[in-house]
């Protein structure tokens, strides 16, 4: 049986009531709602204070710039809800970019390259998934390993070359807006996939299973949920989406390099956690994650427009991340005064 992978669980003296986030106060003060409100604030403040911010051009660019992070965040949300994590996504993106470049350079047709690369990405995810589910290794350790491995393979594939000159009609698909809208194609694709993911996560049996696995894996297993297969599926999905994001990335920048997307995994995880998904699994909403992705992206954009230096941007991101995990616990701590700890739960009032 897989050991619990909550490597980062805080050591605590007495058990923290985990459910208090859903208490009466928590119902209104949920973090994902707060992030949404924060997002609105940033947007309103930006539009009022910075002339270039609310322009269609700028927003369209800012959205497009988030495309890959947002795409990968969809799969990452499901993984984290199931109490797993995939740190290798950015390396899969890099490997996918390197493959696209080297195959394109070798004269392959782009139409065969794209599906092939996605299959390779799924294969990368499969390796992660098998190591996690068959050997019962913590996904954090496994994907730190494959983070190095897949990035290394990207260098093996493409070395120091940088491949450019991709076919214009495909580059256009990655860069241009859907006609008549300010929404770039990848963002439109993201919206579609996000809608699908949202339904899957929050309204289907598969989604229910994910939450159950994340909250209490053993109980999920005893309820007949195919824990291992579901986790394997998630890793495969995560690999495939990361590879697809690699294709988008390559086309969008018109440049295939082995070092594309280095460090992107931390941005994705930051966005997911900022969106209120509990790193210990079992709790979170896709809406929160989307708000988180947008908040990070738009806030950065706004700071840049106001010539706030990168250093400050980095500090702001870090602080937001810390606040995003502290706040719900504070809310819970406030709620705990009204709600008993489960360890000593008195009988509920009779109904």
């Amino acid at each position, binding site marked *: 049986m897989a050991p619990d992978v909550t490597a980062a669980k805080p050591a605590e003296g007495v058990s923290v009531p985990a459910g208090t986030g859903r208490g009466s106060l928590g119902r209104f003060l949920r973090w994902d709602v707060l992030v949404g409100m924060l997002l609105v604030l940033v947007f309103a403040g930006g539009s009022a204070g910075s002339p270039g911010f609310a322009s269609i051009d700028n927003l369209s660019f800012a959205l497009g710039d988030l495309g890959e992070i947002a795409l990968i965040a969809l799969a990452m949300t499901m993984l984290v809800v199931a109490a797993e994590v995939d740190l290798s996504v950015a390396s899969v993106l890099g490997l996918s970019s390197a493959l696209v470049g080297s195959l394109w350079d070798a004269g392959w047709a782009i139409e065969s390259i794209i599906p092939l690369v996605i299959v390779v990405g799924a294969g990368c995810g499969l390796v992660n998934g098998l190591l996690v589910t068959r050997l019962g290794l913590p996904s954090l350790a496994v994907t730190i390993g494959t983070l190095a491995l897949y990035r290394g393979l990207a260098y093996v594939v493409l070395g120091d070359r940088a491949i450019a000159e991709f076919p214009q009609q495909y580059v256009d698909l990655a860069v241009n807006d859907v006609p008549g809208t300010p929404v770039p194609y990848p963002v439109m694709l993201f919206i579609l996939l996000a809608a699908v993911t949202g339904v899957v996560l929050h309204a*289907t049996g598969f989604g229910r299973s994910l*939450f159950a696995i994340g909250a209490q894996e053993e109980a999920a297993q005893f309820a007949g949920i195919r824990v291992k297969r579901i986790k394997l599926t998630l890793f495969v999905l995560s690999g495939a989406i990361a590879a697809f994001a690699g294709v988008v990335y390559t086309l969008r920048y018109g440049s295939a390099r082995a070092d594309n997307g280095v460090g992107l995994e931390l941005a994705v995880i930051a966005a997911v956690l900022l969106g209120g998904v509990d790193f210990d699994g079992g709790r979170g909403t896709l809406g929160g994650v989307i708000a988180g992705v947008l908040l990070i992206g738009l806030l950065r954009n706004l700071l840049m427009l106001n010539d706030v230096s990168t250093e400050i941007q980095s500090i702001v991101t870090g602080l937001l991340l810390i606040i995003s995990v502290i706040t719900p616990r504070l809310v819970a701590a406030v709620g705990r005064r009204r709600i008993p700890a489960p360890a000593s*739960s008195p*009988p509920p009032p009779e109904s």
Partner: protein
Amino acid sequence: MSEPGRGEAPLGSPPEQAPPVLALAGVSKAFGAVRALREVSLQLFAGEAHALAGENGAGKSTLVKTLAGVHRPDTGQVLLDGEPVEFHNPADAQQAGVAVIYQEPTMFPDLSVAENIFIGRQPRAALRRIDRATMHARATELFTRLGVALDPEQPARGLSIADQQLVEIAKALSRDARVLVMDEPTAALSGNEVARLFNVVKALREQGCAVLFISHRLDEIFELCQRVTTLRDGGWIASEPVAGLTHDDLIRRMVGRDLDTLYPKQETTVGEVALRVGRLTREGVFTDVSFEVRRGEIVALAGLVGAGRSEVARAIFGVDRWDAGTVEVNGRRLPAASPTAAMAAGLALVPEDRRQQGLVMDQSIERNIGLTGLKTLRRGPVISRAAERDRARDWAIRLQLKFNRLSDAVNVLSGGNQQKVVLGKWLSTRPEVLIIDEPTRGIDVGTKAEVHRLLSQLAADGLAVLMISSDLPEVLGMADRVLVMQEGRLVAEIPRDRATEESVMTAATGRAS
């Protein structure tokens, strides 16, 4: 039903001369709006075993945690030798000589047994280094005193629950604890392990230790304790000598009303074979287990903890893989290691560990009940919340679940109500074979009777029930047949009319009768 043992001559009344070693005076504790303890008083005297009785949710665990320094009382006092004290944390309580053995043993699986006993108080050599030789010698000495053979250098990982309890007691012994608080220590133990534990506790008591003992098994209270304090709904009901009480008296104090019989077994007609297990083997765990369960029958699987009973259940249901053998449900063979296939064939398993295996504690009642029916609750690709809620409400009513809202997390429910949610979760799959592991562990008397009535009713309706229980009266009271396992093998099959405590225990311990 067995005669309550009253081997020890109970001390009729507390020795008035010395002040109580540890006492609570008018202690109240509230969590938010809920008052877990209301002006509870309790006195523990040296050399006395004191029982704490009450239904789940009566406030017993809160009281234990107050004594242990985990909680601090809102009002009232904790008195040590008659002097008020304040325990800020568990360390303070331990310092004062209060040792607590929790319901679930609190082990460090990666540390050795000796370290588990002495953690934080290891014997020191020069420069405050840990003196390992002394530590191991003292651990061995403690085990000798307890009359058990455990290797102090063995890692705690993999110890049986009974052995873990013993390590906890060794820990308490090593502290020279003056007060030993035991929160349902016997819940996971079987007959001879309980006997061994009781011998140790009696010896401690005779050495002048005060013991606070919590158990849902009333027999044990009558066997071990001199006085009993009863709590109900967080309030103090009575503190009195055990000697003058009957089972029914005690139940009445706990429940606040009279109970009908605890084991309402109905006569049923036995139908065709629903579950057939053939030569099932999992290497190193159980070997060559064969039996069948028919419709309308309640078959109990008895034996000591660690005999492999739960493991057989897990393998049948497919949570664990089996190495050899067959499982058939209604004549259809099940593939190995597939709970999904087992469920499809009509199997249901109410697991042993409610909090870990039975429920997703943070999730709502309706979600927990719905978890086994994700396929049937679908409308198109999407789960219908209305259907989910209907299903939950339906079973909540049928099982007389006490709850506020169906959207409340199950961790706010009492143990008995949590067990009802687990039952609802499985009965809603309309199983043909129900495997139920420790159906009433940690459940108060009132709910216990309800669960038993339900099982009986289900069998009468044609369900095949395989019940695993360490509670012998329950086994004898409910089962049509008793299968006994010992060290991974099925060693005896005893029909209802010949099943007695003695015959079952003889088979379970492997002693020739």
